Structure formats: structure tokens, C-alpha cells
């Protein structure tokens, strides 16, 4: 069964450094998402991406964050200058359709996550 994959599984970085988290969505999916989960807290939406542009983003997704689909298979999340509070588990997800398609398969498939630790 196709799966969403994420690399690395764990990333440790120094405050102020740039990190790139990588995701390979399911191949026929068109919608891509990033979520994060700070330890002990709820999973929070960061951004959705469709047709090579951001569809929607949350307040968390400020100018320090960017997303890209550089080569048609990878979907990346870049944090330009990491802060201590960016430490979290970051989940990538993909779906075939968006919620706007009634009856379509709008299930979001999640990757295993990347644990980002900012020191």
C-alpha cells in the first residue's frame, strides 16, 4: 500500500540554523499539507499546497517558513532561522482530493513525522 514518507526521522539543530524537512507524498495525490505537534499538545495545521502554490496557511506559518515541491515528487518544509519553540514533531500529509469534492477520497494520509529538536 502506498505511504507518505518523511526524512529525516529526527533532526537536531542549533537555534538560528536553517532546516529542511522532506516528504514524499503518495504519487497520485495532488494536495499536500504540513502539520506540527509540540510535545503534549494538539496537532496543528501549518500549510496546505496545491498546484504549486500555497492554498491555505495558519498563523504559525510566518515568514520563517516556506514550502516547495522542487521536483514533482518531494515536498519540503524549510524553516529559515529556527527558534527553540520550533521544536516539535512535523507531519507531512497528502490527499487525492480536497474537502470540496463531495464523495471524493479526501482522506489525508500522514507520514511518520520528523522530530525536530532545536538547541
Amino acid at each position, binding site marked *: 500500500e502506498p505511504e*507518505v514518507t518523511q526524512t529525516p526521522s529526527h533532526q537536531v539543530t542549533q537555534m538560528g540554523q536553517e532546516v529542511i524537512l522532506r516528504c514524499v507524498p503518495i504519487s497520485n495525490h495532488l*494536495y499536500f499539507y504540513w502539520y506540527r505537534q509540540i510535545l503534549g499538545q*494538539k496537532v496543528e495545521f501549518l500549510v496546505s499546497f496545491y498546484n504549486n502554490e500555497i*492554498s*491555505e496557511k*495558519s498563523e504559525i506559518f510566518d515568514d520563517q517558513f516556506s514550502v516547495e515541491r522542487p521536483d514533482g515528487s518531494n515536498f519540503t518544509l524549510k524553516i529559515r532561522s529556527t527558534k527553540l519553540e520550533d521544536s516539535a514533531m512535523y*507531519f507531512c500529509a497528502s*490527499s487525492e482530493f*480536497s*474537502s470540496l469534492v463531495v464523495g471524493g477520497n479526501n482522506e489525508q494520509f500522514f507520514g511518520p513525522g520528523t522530530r525536530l529538536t532545536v538547541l
Partner: protein
Amino acid sequence: AQTVTQSQPEMSVQEAETVTLSCTYDTSESDYYLFWYKQPPSRQMILVIRQEAYKQQNATENRFSVNFQKAAKSFSLKISDSQLGDAAMYFCAYWGGGSQGNLIFGKGTKLSVKP
């Protein structure tokens, strides 16, 4: 803004018994989806069950069923004949019909299954 509330941080059930996990949500929209996701320890989240708000019939998937009360904005998950493999974190999630995929999650309920 939409919110999702799971009032049970932890639940425990005996193997083969039935357990119900609670979820309430708040929205002004009439068309939306509700989901229950399961996250086993150190594993990725997988979808357990989905309910479309326009459907009155409660969704069922084998041992998993929901009690969807639209007027009360309640969406509970019932797990029948609980198995050891059901032990996981369970997240209730909301997806509004007007959004492009912004899943709103509850804080989760940690379910333990006792042999």
C-alpha cells in the same frame, strides 16, 4: 473559529470490552467532515473512520462505529471487542467544507487496553 474538544486525556479498557471516546466540536458551517485518527506509539497517524455531516447515518468500520449527533455537535467513537492493538492515541478531527484541507484536531485521548 472551529474548535475540537476531547475531554478524556486517557481511557482504559479491558480486552474484548467496549469503550467510547468522546469528541465535541464547534462550528457555524453546515457542511463538513469529521474524522477519527489513530496514532500508535512511534507510528504514523492512520484514519480509523470518517463521517460526512450531510449523512444522517452513523459511519461504521468493522469494530469501530461513531455516534454523530449534529445538533449537539458531538462525534464519539465506539470500539467494540477491544484488542491489544487498539492501544494508541486517538485524535478527533474536523475538516470544514470551505477550507482547502485545514484539519483541526482535538488534543487526543490515550487509550490503553488491558489483557
